[in-house]
């Protein structure tokens, strides 16, 4: 044993030495490290959970906004479509109205023209008759020979045509 240097004092002193070292580390160092790691783990977990929740919330918010946007867009589209349909209708109405009015104007014009024509024709008939009456009167009053008669009629007619 002596050749190996074994000596109970040294042996015990090393054991005590190790115990002291272990005690100091166990008392002051390891709990601190372990506590720190534990705390950090907890905080990271908390942070991740919070981040997850936030992300989920944001996702929901985004979806909600998207839906809202979509609804608004659809509504706007609908409104535009409705407006354009209405405009189309108004246009059609206006056109129809215009057409109708034009038609009416045309019709009334034609009718008026026709009436005028009839009136003029009637007038002409009346005048012709009057003139004929007048001419006949004159003819009758003079008692004219055939030659003069012809002359008068001739004159009358030329007058008429001149009219």
């Amino acid at each position, binding site marked *: 044993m*002596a*050749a*190996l*240097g*074994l*000596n109970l*004092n*040294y*042996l*015990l*002193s*090393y*054991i005590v*030495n*190790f*115990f*002291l*070292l*272990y005690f*100091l*580390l*166990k008392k*002051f*160092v*390891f709990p*601190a*490290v*372990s506590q*720190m*790691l534990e*705390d*950090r783990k907890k*905080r990271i977990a908390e942070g991740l959970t919070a981040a997850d929740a936030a992300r989920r919330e944001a996702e929901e918010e985004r979806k909600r906004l998207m839906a809202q946007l979509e609804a608004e867009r659809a509504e706007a589209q609908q409104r535009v479509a409705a407006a354009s349909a209405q405009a189309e209708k108004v246009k059609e109405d206006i056109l129809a109205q215009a057409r109708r009015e034009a038609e009416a104007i045309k019709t009334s014009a034609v009718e008026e023209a026709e009436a005028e024509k009839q009136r003029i024709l009637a007038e002409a008939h009346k005048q012709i008759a009057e003139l004929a009456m007048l001419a006949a009167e004159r003819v009758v009053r003079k008692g004219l020979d055939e030659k003069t008669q012809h002359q008068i009629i001739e004159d009358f007619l030329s007058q008429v045509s001149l009219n």
Partner: protein
Amino acid sequence: MSKLLRPKPLAIIIGFLALLVISILFVRVPLPTILLPGEAIPGLAIGNFKITNTFIATLIADIVVLALAFLAVRNMKDVPESKLQNIFEWIYEIFEGMLTDIGGKEKAKAWVGVFLTLLFFLLFANWMELVPGIDSIGYIEPVEKAYVEKGVTVGYQVKHLGPFITLTSEQVKLSNEEREAIKKEAEEVEAAGQEYHPHEPKGYVLTPYVRAATTDLNLTIGLALLVVIWSHVIGFRRLGGKYARRFALPVITGMKPIDLFVGLLEFISEFAKIISLSFRLFGNIFAGQVLLFVMAFLVSFLLPLPFFGLELFVGFMQAFVFAILTFIYFEQATHSHAGDEHH
């Protein structure tokens, strides 16, 4: 190959070769005295307790471990600012995870402290053999005195360099007659109640002030004893009387010859644990130190380098093996013997 022929690498290679040649031809270092026991340093004692160089190394390892550990946990921050805290936490987590894999969460938590204390302490105790100059700074005493006290028979001539004394590589060997004469003289002087001091020392021996602590069997056996006994304490505390069954199996089962044999084996294996733990550690580190001595003795430059790398690895590996085996022993002590309960 062509890369090596460029001027810079070429110069480096030539420099290395020149160093090698110089160290082989001109620079010789003495082979340090290789002794198994830790060497007591003269004049350094607490009462009867002589302080050995391995004991000094133990204290240094303690201080280094404590200093690093306390620096690491001093002013700890949730977001680590010091690298030391980072490294320490990293190590703690890695090994706690490893122990959890072996023994489960509860046991890992309970014994990670023992594991890490062993690992750190042994790591620095082992690596102390790598500190340059550790084996060459020490006190110098006459070879005659070293022979009487430790049986050293080879000394060296000394040279004075200013206030320092250094060994040269000139060997002085004590012949058999000289040894006889020295022994006789020393006995006479000590019989007269005085301390033996040779008048004209033929040579001198250097004993380093610090020697890697794990090259002292007292430390390794002490630690091995401690952890094995500790494992039994754990066994008893966790299993109570059941724990004793593994050793007292023969008594309980009525002394069947096979049970007697099993109990005996179980008993022997506890001693084997102590022996294997302590001598594995001691043998590896002691041999590593001798290896480094011899390499430096053969070729003082370059050649020792790869062995320093090797010893760095061995130092870590042995510390780790000791610590992990301790944990495994602790863990095993908590298992009641297979099948015992159902007999």
